[in-house]
């Protein structure tokens, strides 16, 4: 199994740490992983994105131009990455702040109101974990016990008391994610 993922949004949304937690969760189940960020000034206030690959085999290119999954958290990223989802792939996005919704018919599209759910959890920083939950509900590529270990590994000790809240946020994401378009169903209808 190989899952090639792009996570893209604004700097400060926790895009890079979401990628890191996914990567660590992959390591916890003995997978090969790579985490390739955008870096430099583009991260500071501008758009941030990270390519994360989890695989049972040696990973070749950490830089990709098509993805199994795109997790998209702002309009600029939607404009850039919608076309880069492989046919039959998955696009998950937070509709908050999106003016041009995805139009692809040959992929699965899901929405998660991450910002809204995070504020209902009274902690806006849980945003990225809500998003991760939404993704893992549709593509359960890592087991929750490994996500737990991944959180332990990637968060510094002083933040470990936040792990239960993060896990709660993941569960909220799993519950609230909505598949709004599925190419498979469309194929079946035809």
């Amino acid at each position, binding site marked *: 199994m190989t899952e090639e993922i792009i996570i893209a949004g604004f700097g400060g949304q926790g895009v890079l740490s979401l990628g*890191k937690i996914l*990567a*660590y969760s992959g*390591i916890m189940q003995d997978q*090969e*992983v*790579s*985490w*390739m*960020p955008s*870096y*430099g*000034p583009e991260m500071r206030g501008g758009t941030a994105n990270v390519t994360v690959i989890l695989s049972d085999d040696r*990973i*070749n*290119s*950490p*830089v*990709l*131009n*098509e993805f199994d999954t795109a997790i998209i958290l702002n309009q600029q990223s939607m404009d850039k990455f919608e076309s880069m989802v492989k046919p039959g792939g998955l696009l998950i996005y937070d509709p908050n702040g999106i003016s041009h919704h995805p139009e692809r018919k040959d992929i699965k599209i899901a929405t998660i109101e991450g910002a809204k759910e995070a504020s209902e959890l009274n902690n806006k920083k849980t945003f990225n974990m809500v998003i991760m939950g939404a993704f893992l509900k549709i593509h359960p590529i890592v087991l929750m016990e490994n996500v737990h270990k991944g959180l332990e*590994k*990637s968060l510094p000790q002083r933040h470990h008391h936040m792990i239960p809240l993060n896990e709660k946020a993941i569960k909220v994401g799993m519950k609230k994610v909505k598949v709004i378009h599925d190419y498979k169903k469309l194929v079946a209808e035809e």
Partner: protein
Amino acid sequence: MEEVKLMKGNEAMAEAAIRAGVDAYFGYPITPQSEVIEYLMHEEPFKRTGMVVLQAESELAAINMVYGAAACGKKAMTSSSSPGISLKLEGISYMAGAELPCLIANVMRGGPGLGTIQPGQSDYFQAVKGGGHGDYNLIVLAPSTVQEMADFVDLGFDLAFKYRNPVMILSDGAIGQMMEKVILPEQKERLSNEEIIKHYGNWATTGKPESRESNIITSLDLKPELQEIHNQHLQNKFKTAEKNEVRYEQIQCEDADYILVAYGTSARISQKVVQLGREKGLKIGLLRPITLWPFPKKIISELADHAKGFLSVEMSAGQMVEDVLLAVEGKVPVAHFGRMGGMIASPSEVLDAVEKEINKI
């Protein structure tokens, strides 16, 4: 038990330096390699192993501090990115002339000039053809994974002391910035002066006992007759290294009738290209030089007896392609594909280039 960590290439190299028993790191920050000194300062190896970590006032100061430490037989290293390496070249040439071992890492960014902070591979000529003045070579190691960023520190110092010559790790911003799984080496002890003499010979300025003459570390000899003899000695060393130290990896070259040649990040992308090409029925393979100097000429020449052509894939306008051309000796066509200025080629555009070149043959 093996310690598996998720680390950036820059961090893995820094941690590997502590564990290799390195005595001193002197550096000056520059994107995309600032995590090296950042990590070292955070880890405080001066408390763990006694390793010195110092932010110099400039790249020039840093390389000359390395010269000083190396002259004492210490394992000293520095790292920078392209413009910073240009500043260090005078010191690097002096160290090659004075036969001082050291490790220099270049986490390349796009150039020329200040260029960009995004990844590049346009310092190939600078690394393998000299860069500094005079007839010298660096042994140049090209990591293509975070694991190799860690592994090449110890290997680099082994080679540096074996040949009493500077060794360079030629990496790029992508390998430096990305995180992968890495298995860290065991902690090695730093060496005492007695151990330095025992392991590496009695050439360093470790303190003069009455039993021997002074050890003099210099690259200067004003008598041309003697300077030529010194140069011949250096050239003999380089010939030995060319014979013994070539390293490379072949990926699906056995039955390939078209071969990509790439190192570092471009080699990672090219592995994907080989996979995608094979899925389309193209018999392509990848030759990945691990040492850029000495360059794996012999294997490329051998592959040229069977393959119909070569494509050098680099994040440059075409530098390594010249060494591929020399190695192929005109037997088959050699082409180049590159992106510049911090742009990284996507696997599909490289595959398009491969198909275009194959169709020309």
